[in-house]
């Protein structure tokens, strides 16, 4: 920092230790993306659904676990979390909707489509969770050291 910046910026406080919400969410996203690539590489044929189904189930389980772990974090800037989560969820529902529309328009049907829709749902919730958590974790809340 240049001289005097300490007047403008808050003095850094030790970062609070939180559960690995970000790491779990990134892992869930990576699993969904790998599963999505696996299916996309095989359509319009008959893709083998077992490997992507396992990846999707793992991703969904990780996402649910992440939400449960996060719900137990106290204190936490829930208002800020909900604000960012809501706005980004709206954006990612549109993006996931576009991708879903493309798949339907392409004639993807049956198990492949069902699995891809579940993947898109996980993706559309996972990314807002990631974004909202990253913003909210740096908010000072009552009961937190340094608040």
């Amino acid at each position, binding site marked *: *920092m240049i001289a005097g910046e300490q007047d*403008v910026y*808050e003095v850094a406080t030790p970062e609070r230790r939180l559960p690995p919400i970000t790491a779990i969410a990134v892992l869930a*996203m990576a699993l969904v993306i790998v599963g999505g690539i696996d299916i*996309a590489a095989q359509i319009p044929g008959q893709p083998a659904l077992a490997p992507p189904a396992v990846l999707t189930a793992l991703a969904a389980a990780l996402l649910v676990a992440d939400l449960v772990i996060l719900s137990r974090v106290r204190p936490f800037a829930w208002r800020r979390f909900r604000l*960012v989560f809501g706005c980004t969820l709206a954006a990612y529902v549109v993006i996931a909707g576009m991708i879903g529309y*493309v798949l339907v328009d392409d004639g993807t049907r049956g198990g492949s489509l069902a699995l891809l829709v579940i993947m898109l749902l996980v993706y559309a919730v996972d990314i807002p969770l990631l*974004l909202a958590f*990253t913003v909210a974790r*740096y908010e000072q809340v009552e009961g937190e050291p340094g608040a």
Partner: protein
Amino acid sequence: MADAVLQGLAAGAGLMPPEATRAMPRPPRTIVPLWGLPIVAAILIGEVFAIASNSFWALDFYHVVGGGIWTALDLFVGLVIGPIIGSMSVQARAEFTARFMPKMLLIMPTLVTMTLASGFQLARHVGFLEASAPRHGWVVASFIVVGVMSVIALGILEPANLAVLFEMRKPKPNGELIGRLMRRFAYTAGVTGVMQLATLVIMTRLAT
């Protein structure tokens, strides 16, 4: 209040004349510039029409324009802007971020959506999606590159951008945190820039 302090600091340090510091920005109150939303909506509606009408030209237009801008932006930000940001003072990073990042929050997802949705349709039209197609491997390679870029951009880069913007709106932002998050931005933007070089190789292989 904090704006005034920031302006006074910059002027006092001789960084800018007082008139210029008066214009020193904070991220907009809404973070995402609302005036850009109708433009994004128009682009996405146009893309839906392109897909619904199965117009080869429209799909090609969306893919080439979206992909070209996306690749160029990623390369420029990752390999030119990123290292410059990394060498800036926290104050300068903060100023740059306040002007640059809100726009990127709208531009990048829009470019990615228009490129990927039209690209997938285009691949179907020209038969590249068929596993038996001679260039199918390049299409799968492009899926993998996009997948890696998505994990980096959505898992690291975008959350850091958003956190910086919210931090800067606080009455007394944490400069050390902003600096740390911006370094993360600079490094990951560099990685996605390099990944875009792979995209250029793949796309030119597909087109020739």
